[in-house]
């Protein structure tokens, strides 16, 4: 029965969904050239897309538990790779377009801003996971591959922290622009909690 449902989610739909933001950005550019502060707009949007796609990738396994369909597992990798691609764009916009590769300004900036540590650490991990996402690396690393790729949970946490600390206000005091960071924290927490053994086996029992 689940097979029928998941047929509604063919692989190409994932590619379309992940590339739609680019089409959207192109459309917005044609309408108003990305607004009054276009660099800031692009930085923010590329970061949003990377976060959403990473959360979507992390949602695949819980969806498998819930629907009892292995189909979702196949979406994990492309969604993760798209998350990496948007993160790379996000970083490139920051370093290249915003700061014009002025390393003497960028390096002190990265050193003294906590939110950038989290962002950069998340990017390094995403890069590592993207590079080792091929079947070749999977074979080479054997059991360690799975261990290595549990780092995606840490990456999710780092990305959400990077986002939460990049807003105007204080996430720990729930003051300021905390709404979306809070939502992403809750979503990430749910996605990780579902993986816990008791919840997982409860879901498995449901499908028996």
């Amino acid at each position, binding site marked *: 029965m689940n097979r029928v449902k998941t047929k509604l989610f063919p692989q190409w739909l994932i590619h379309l969904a992940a590339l739609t933001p680019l089409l959207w950005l192109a459309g917005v550019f044609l309408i108003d050239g990305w*607004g*009054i*502060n276009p*660099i*800031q707009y692009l930085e923010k949007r590329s970061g949003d897309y990377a976060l959403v796609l990473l959360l979507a990738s992390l949602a695949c396994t819980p969806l498998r538990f819930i629907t009892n369909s292995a189909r979702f597992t196949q979406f994990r990798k492309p969604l993760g790779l798209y998350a990496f691609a948007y993160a790379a764009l996000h970083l490139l916009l920051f370093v290249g377009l*915003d*700061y*014009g590769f*002025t390393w003497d*300004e960028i390096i002190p*900036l990265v050193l*003294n*801003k*906590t*939110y950038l540590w989290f962002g950069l650490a998340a990017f390094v991990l995403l890069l590592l996971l993207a590079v080792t996402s091929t079947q070749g690396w999977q074979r080479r690393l054997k059991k360690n591959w799975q261990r290595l790729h549990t780092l995606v949970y840490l990456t999710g946490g780092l990305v959400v922290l990077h986002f939460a*600390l*990049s807003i*105007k*206000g*204080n996430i720990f*005091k*729930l*003051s*300021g*622009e*905390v*709404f979306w960071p809070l939502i992403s924290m809750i979503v990430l927490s749910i996605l990780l909690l579902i993986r816990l053994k008791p919840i997982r086996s409860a879901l498995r029992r449901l499908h028996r």
Partner: protein
Amino acid sequence: MKPDDLHKEITPEKLYFSRRKFLALVGTVGLSAALVACGITTTPDTGTASTGSLVTDTPVPDILTPLDTITHYNNFYEFSTDKGSVADLAVNYKTEPWTLEIAGLVEHPGKISVSDLMKTYPAEERIYRLRCVEGWSMVIPWNGFALHKLLSDVGVKDSAKYVKFTGPDDPANLPGQNSAFYTWPYTEGLRLDEANHDLTILATGLYGKILPPQDGAPIRLVVPWKYGFKSIKSIVKIELVADQPPTFWNLLAPDEYGFYSNVNPNVPHPRWSQATERRIGELKRRQTYIFNGYGEQVAYLYDGMDLVKNY
């Protein structure tokens, strides 16, 4: 000058640009702080009454930010946290009639309508750089009057040491005020000597036009050497007080937004670079200057103070 008259006598943007060139010239010749404090009166070639402009230049020429940009990129959290949405959300916000209350440690407390205020204190033009704490900046030709004029007329008592400003508390008409993540209403504060500085103005207009609601109509503070959030919009109350008043962003994140919040590239912010800024409309970042380039005029206010500690 009545608001209606102001509206009729719109100064073409081109004229502003030519005057700006003149000012740039004056600036490069080198203005002494004393001369600047007296105010330069430019030729009355525009519609606004008594056009006094106070400007010191940065090495890279400042060019006026277009009106349409100034009115469509607004940090006005009472409406929205999205700078692009404020203009649309504020379009029906009623700013006339508007009463400003003067309260606290003054000889003549009371309420005054903003239209009366505008008659009593004719608008001067002040071209100022505006540096947002988020790392962007604009150059804005304000119309308004020096706050010290109002303060001296209401008679500040000796016991007053600070000026507290309060914005509107009107969640029915200010959608952003329904968010529980902020401490409404918006409040700001200045030390009395900062408030009395001639660069500190109450603005009622922009480009010779009546201030639009999204830019803080009908009356807002402009303190050009401080980060933009100090320049509170749509003021309903000015209060003279003895103690340092609480301020909106300081309440939200005290580690990031101090009471003084002077533009200072030497005080890093946890998020945005304060060493450089993006002038809206430009691709390359510009250097940020201490006191937003107004150090000649205002640095003496902070003599002997540790500006890193008193950020």
